[in-house]
């Protein structure tokens, strides 16, 4: 016996002829413990008294008392005994088919084959039967009767091999707040719910030709031919489920990866269904979400950016660019200051749009690191230009919402100033309008403190947020930066232009200058100048440029002076 464990298996030899019985028993006894019976009745007694340990029966068909067929019928109809494989011994071809139809797994012809052949057939039959039992015991979840995870994926892979052209959906179904269901109603009730969900899924699986498993305590995976209109199916599912679980308000969330890409591993296809499902967390309604490839790629890309940020900082992939701001109140525009803008020049991906990474890092707080990097770079640059041109070009830097809540903010800024021997008025701070609306008390306090120590504060993107008129009067600011959307639209849209005029009036009322961003054309420039806007920033003068290029603008300014 070549099986791994060394249990000595039992084989029963049933034959009415003593010579045959002894001969076969002798052959088989090389590898097995052998029991003998002369007829069906004796055999049945032996089988019953060794039901747990008997591995195989070698059965003659024609015997007195009870023949082989009769015994086969008894065994195949017995829930417990049918697991024992039976090989029949026969000299007739016609009997072979009949015996197999009665439930025999194999036959050994008479006169007997070579002992090696008999032993090999015995071993193979035992192995198959044991594997079958193992599969039977492990392929189904005992509570719900659905497949277990491992078998499910295996069968799904098999399905793909046989039907590679059928488009399939990977669906995952989770019960919302299932742990609470268990706590609130008891485990038995929870089990009941799981069985109900499983029964519904099983029903759908049967109707659609799909297969399903319980892959986690309250999670089910379902692999089925593509459904064109999942909403209708889920509606039906949810109604049935509601009836089953009445009066409790238990709902499920469903993630669907439609037309799943068979080029990726089956497990990964269900990961995608899970990703879709995770967007539905904590819903109180039965809801479903479709996996969106583009959305996922975006998420992956974001994750990559997050992972690479530190490395990018240390490798100087980030660079600070400067965009000039011009005072246009006089006859000729005068370079008055600059805004520091960060650029990420990735060694493989090239220039990564700030629109992508800034909002991403704002969401997860990583922006703090970038802000500090920009503050330091900008301060050093101001210092450098100051030495080179004997004048200060103030540079405005971004102060993100999260920085405002940082108790060390002022200290950090002071340190940067000190390291570069600058005064607070030389580093301008831009705070976006939307930051003001969130926790206005805190921001007003922080900004007030900064102003008291000499910093000048510009309110960025003004007009895009929702500052209340009431709050505007309490705002400690030194300039308003007009949201560039107004500038872009004002030449075509008279309402947008009216808004610009209104904001200019507000600024006048607050006694602060307005900086217009995103000015690109002569027309925009003239309109803003006429309306009384003091400072202009945008492509009309220059795009954001590296420090070396910015110097040319300074030099040009010098020469016209």
């Amino acid at each position: 016996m070549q099986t791994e464990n060394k249990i000595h298996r039992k084989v029963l030899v049933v034959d009415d002829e003593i010579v045959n019985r002894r001969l076969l028993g002798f052959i088989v006894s090389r590898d097995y413990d052998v029991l003998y019976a002369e007829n069906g009745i004796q055999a049945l007694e032996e089988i019953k008294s060794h039901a747990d340990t008997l591995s195989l029966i070698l059965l003659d068909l024609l015997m007195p008392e009870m023949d082989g067929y009769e015994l086969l019928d008894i065994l195949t109809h017995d829930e417990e005994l049918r697991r024992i494989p039976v090989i029949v011994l026969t000299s007739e071809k016609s009997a072979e088919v009949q015996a197999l139809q009665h439930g025999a797994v194999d036959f050994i012809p008479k006169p007997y084959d070579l002992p090696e052949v008999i032993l090999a057939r015995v071993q193979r039959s035992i192995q198959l039967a044991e594997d079958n039992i193992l599969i039977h015991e492990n392929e189904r979840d005992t509570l719900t009767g659905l497949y277990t995870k491992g078998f499910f994926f295996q069968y799904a892979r098999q399905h793909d091999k046989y039907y590679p052209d059928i488009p399939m959906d990977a669906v995952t179904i989770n019960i919302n707040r299932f742990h609470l269901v268990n706590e609130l109603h008891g485990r038995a009730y929870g089990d009941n719910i799981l069985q109900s969900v499983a029964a519904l899924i099983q029903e759908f699986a049967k109707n659609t030709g799909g297969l399903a498993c319980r892959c986690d305590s309250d999670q089910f995976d379902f692999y089925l031919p593509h459904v064109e209109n999942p909403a209708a199916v889920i509606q039906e599912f949810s109604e049935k489920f509601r009836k089953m679980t009445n009066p409790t308000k238990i709902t499920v969330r469903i993630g669907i990866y439609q037309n799943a890409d068979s080029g990726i591993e089956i497990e990964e296809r269900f990961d995608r269904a899970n990703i879709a499902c995770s967007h539905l967390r904590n819903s109180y309604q039965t809801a479903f979400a479709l996996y969106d490839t583009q959305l996922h790629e975006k998420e992956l890309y974001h994750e990559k950016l997050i992972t690479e940020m530190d490395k990018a900082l240390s490798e100087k992939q980030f660079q600070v660019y400067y965009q000039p701001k011009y005072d246009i109140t006089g006859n000729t525009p005068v370079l008055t200051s600059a805004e520091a803008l960060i650029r990420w020049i990735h060694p493989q991906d090239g220039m990564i749009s700030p629109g992508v990474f800034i909002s991403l890092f704002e969401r997860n707080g990583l922006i703090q690191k970038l802000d500090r990097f920009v503050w330091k770079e900008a301060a050093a640059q101001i210092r450098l230009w100051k030495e080179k041109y004997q004048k200060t070009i103030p540079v405005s830097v971004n102060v993100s919402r999260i920085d405002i809540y940082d108790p060390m903010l002022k200290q950090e800024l002071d340190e940067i100033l000190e390291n570069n021997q600058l005064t607070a008025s030389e580093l301008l701070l831009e705070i976006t309008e939307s930051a003001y609306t969130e926790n206005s008390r805190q921001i007003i306090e922080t900004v007030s403190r900064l102003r008291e120590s000499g910093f000048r504060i510009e309110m960025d993107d003004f007009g895009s947020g929702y500052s209340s008129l009431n709050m505007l009067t309490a705002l400690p600011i030194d300039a308003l930066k007009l949201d560039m959307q107004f500038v872009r639209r004002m030449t075509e849209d008279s309402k947008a232009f009216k808004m610009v005029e209104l904001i200019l009036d507000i600024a006048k009322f607050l006694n602060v200058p307005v900086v217009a961003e995103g000015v690109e054309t002569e027309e925009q420039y003239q309109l803003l100048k006429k309306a009384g806007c003091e400072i202009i920033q945008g492509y009309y003068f220059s795009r954001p440029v590296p420090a070396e290029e910015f110097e040319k603008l300074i030099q040009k300014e010098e020469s016209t002076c």
Partner: protein
Amino acid sequence: MLTIETLQQFGADTEDGLKRCMNLEDFYLELVQTALDDTPVTELEKAISAQDLDSAFETAHAFKGVCGNLALTPLYIPVSEITELLRSRTQTDYQPLMTEIKLQMQKLRALAE
């Protein structure tokens, strides 16, 4: 005395029979002796003369299996023949085949003395 040589004299395919007994001569000879001691020939004859073809078939069929397994070819041939006739319950004169079977049995017995 029953030996491999005497069985060969009888016409048995001893090589085939021995293989089945994993080449253990003693075991092979012992099984042949058992078959001789427990011969169903008389039983078969009785059943045929009583026209009980059902039990005649069962007996012949079992005996065929034994002869086949022990490779007793001169017995196996007529026993197979009679088994097939009995399987279809053919109404025929079984006497010649019975005579042949009995003759072969006697030969084997004589060799076993």
